């Protein structure tokens, strides 16, 4: 079972607590800033086990965690940056 996290980059303030607690070290701090000027966390999810530690320590409630088969993960990610929800579809 693979995990997937969705980070709301507009809520994220780049404190890096998720980076420090991730047991698989799959989260990094982005090089591009968000609209508030913070450098948000980002991930490619490879190796994520959906333990949820990143979401538990996140002070801004910016992380959602999902668990499922890799080839069927389909998530609707909303961000304050865009008006309409953006559909991300992944296929293995």
């Amino acid at each position: 079972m693979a995990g997937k996290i969705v980070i709301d980059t507009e809520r994220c303030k780049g404190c890096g607590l998720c980076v420090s607690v991730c047991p698989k070290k799959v989260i990094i701090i982005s090089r591009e800033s968000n609209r508030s000027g913070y450098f948000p966390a980002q991930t490619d999810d490879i190796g994520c086990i959906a333990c949820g530690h990143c979401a538990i320590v996140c002070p801004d409630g910016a992380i959602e965690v999902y668990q499922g088969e890799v080839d069927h993960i389909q998530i609707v990610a909303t961000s304050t940056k865009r008006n309409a929800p953006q559909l991300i579809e992944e296929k293995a």
Partner: protein
Amino acid sequence: MKTVFKRTPVLKDCPTHYCPGCGHGIAHRLLAEVIEELDIQDRTIGIAPVGCAVLAYNYLDVDMIEVAHGRAPAVATGMKRTNPDHIVFSYQGDGDLAAIGTAEILHAAHRAEQLTVIFINNAVFGMTGGQMAPTTMLGQVTATTLGGRHATGEGYPLQVSEILALLPGTTYVERCALSSAPRIKQAKKAIKHAFQLQMDGAPGLSLVEILSPCPTYWRLAPAKAMAWIEEQMTTAFPIARLKG
């Protein structure tokens, strides 16, 4: 696909004004999750403090009132006595509860008011610029103790929870921390228990003290601030279930 973690709707969908890595965001979320799990959103009244959490009513989707500095337990007393079927909690920082509001919290506990108090202890006055609070650690450098806090001039860290645990009017006192994922889960359990006691009509005040990071005024990176709680703060403020 299974959802492991999703933000609770009791926490409003707006970014907070807190600094990056601030513990208030975590504490707000724990409160919101507990309120959702206990299904008491429509009958909960929160009392916001003066301090960094002064705008807590912008983030928690329950009825809230903002009161004068330190007076949250006094207002909560009136709220609970006039609305006995409602769940009343106050959310206070250490500058609010342990400094200017010492009389109010002491006498609310002394009168055995049926309230839940969430006490956020970050060992400094965060809102006003990181000055020394009564809960500041010995040797801790703040804006007003540049050489570190000395017991001879500035006294010792005030352990409010230990004092309140001695009073017969408190039913439950626990000190938790936000320094790691397991600690945060434990803090959530403590908050839930405190609310549950009030819902069950326990005859007294329930208080949960939460050791919370203030990376900005501790001059530490957020991850190091979490480690500092574990290494330093827990020596003066041991994590324990003090009563109940």
